[in-house]
């Protein structure tokens, strides 16, 4: 038996690489936190400000709540409409984006590219543009949410489709089914629960997003938030925030419960 040539538990190579990566991460952080004046020291120095804003925010002004509720409902309605249309329109898009259904890159790549571009645009920026076109109101907000959710839903769904069990497709194909039958009998049953689940998830995302669209005039509760901030009326701001919080938590909870039961 030859005398073992051993260097220890971790090879030097691996050690060196880990060290370099770690140093790089820390160095970049040092630079960015300095450049944005957000070092841990700044957090300490900002302490007075955190305390002040807390005393400003409390106690919330509950007399203002009814007005907030009205806008909250609008917000949720915007999310419902946008999600519904996005879900419907996304079906052909995600089918075409799935490489296992349409292996030719000439089909799925362009569709994916467009969806990827759409997803890079922050929804509030979309809202700004739509406000520029359609004027202030809920419509541009719905449009912004719709476009954004379309991209999101399409991506989530085509990824799901690409991970389905391809065997049943073989089976349907082997018994003589055509492409549409294969999709309908072998693909859709496998992804339907996820589709509903992702739809609900996108709805959650949309509720959250629509709460701030009002900042740029695109409807919903954000308008109130923006007004009260302009008035420096923090107790009312707090009321709005708490109501948003409760609404989002409740919606997430319900949606999660439904999703759990589905999948």
């Amino acid at each position, binding site marked *: 038996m030859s005398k073992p040539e051993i260097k220890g538990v971790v090879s030097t190579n691996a050690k060196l690489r880990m060290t370099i990566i770690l140093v790089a991460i820390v160095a970049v952080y040092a630079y960015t936190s300095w450049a944005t004046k957000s070092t841990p020291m700044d957090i300490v120095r900002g302490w007075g400000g955190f305390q002040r804003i807390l005393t*400003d925010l409390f106690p919330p002004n509950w007399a203002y709540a009814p007005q907030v509720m009205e806008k909250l409902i609008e917000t949720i309605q915007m999310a419902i409409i946008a999600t519904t249309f996005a879900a419907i329109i996304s079906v052909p898009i995600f089918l075409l984006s799935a490489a296992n259904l349409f292996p030719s890159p000439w089909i799925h790549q362009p569709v994916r590219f467009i969806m990827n571009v759409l997803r890079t645009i922050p929804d509030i920026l979309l809202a700004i543009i739509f*406000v520029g076109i359609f*004027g*202030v109101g809920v419509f541009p907000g719905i449009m912004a949410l719709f476009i954004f959710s379309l991209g999101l839903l399409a991506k989530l769904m085509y990824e799901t489709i690409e991970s389905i069990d391809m065997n049943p497709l073989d089976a349907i194909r082997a018994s003589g089914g055509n492409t549409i039958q294969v999709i309908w009998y072998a693909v859709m049953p496998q992804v339907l629960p996820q589709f509903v689940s992702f739809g609900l998830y996108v709805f959650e995302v949309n509720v959250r997003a629509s709460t701030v669209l009002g900042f740029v*005039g695109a409807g919903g509760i954000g308008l109130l938030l923006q007004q009260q901030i*302009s*008035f420096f*009326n*923090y*107790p009312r701001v707090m009321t709005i925030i708490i109501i948003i919080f409760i609404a989002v938590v409740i919606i997430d909870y319900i949606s999660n419960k439904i999703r759990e039961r589905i999948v």
Partner: protein
Amino acid sequence: ACGAADEPTEEAPAADPTEEETDATEETDEDATADYPSELVMGFVPSQDSANIADTVAPLADRLSEELGIPVRGEVMTNYTATVEAMGNDQVHIGFIPAFGYVLATDRYDHIEAVLKSVRHGSSTYKAQYTVRADSDIESLEDLEGKIWALPDLTSTSGYLFPAAQLMDDYGVEDVESFFSNIIQAGGHDNALIQVLEGDADVATTFDDARESIEADYPEVMEELRVLDYTDEIPNDTISVTTNLPQELIDQIVEVFLSFNDDEEMLEIMDSVYNWTGIDTATDSDYDVVRSVSEKFDVN
């Protein structure tokens, strides 16, 4: 917290031991012997209440810097709220704040004070105007009952605050919201006018004369829209400073700004960029009129 309605104590920043005491933490440590800052920051909001909208304050800043001997940086803020918060946190020392914003700012921070105000068309005040379609049958403010009102924004001094106050005071309107059949927040003075132009609203309230600002895009605006009435005089935008600066420096700043009135070159810049024809001294009490108007509203 912030918001008992008794404002007029702002004059004496140090005397009032409200919660703002804690704000100025860093500065109050050194207290009376406030130092010259290494750099002055001037915060500017692209004002909605003017026909031109500036996106740089560089020429002004350069000139100030030259005269004061301290570097001066101009920073464009996204809105007056940001300017006020920045001044509250001593990140901005000189802020250009509209009248209503100033009143709210003094309510929130003790160390913000107006020292100068702008002069437009030779006046340090301006008015808000009610604009209706030329062929409209609205002849007086009373006729507005049941009509659709397009306003730029609930935080606008000329677009909302003064007209609403006028309706309440002079015409006994108790609740403007039910006086009109509908209120559209158009998101800008220009948009408010366009709502009327398009027939989506019957009346728009804007600064005087906002029509000019959309004339380029809508050449017909002067003929098709007619001014129904004006409000009382509104004090122009302030140039406010934080009183955490040494008094000496504040005096110097005021002096330099006033000197621009005699400087053809600066006057030209101010006019072309901000529509200002001059600068005048201001005191906090100049804005009491806005303060008393704002008290009518359920703002705080």
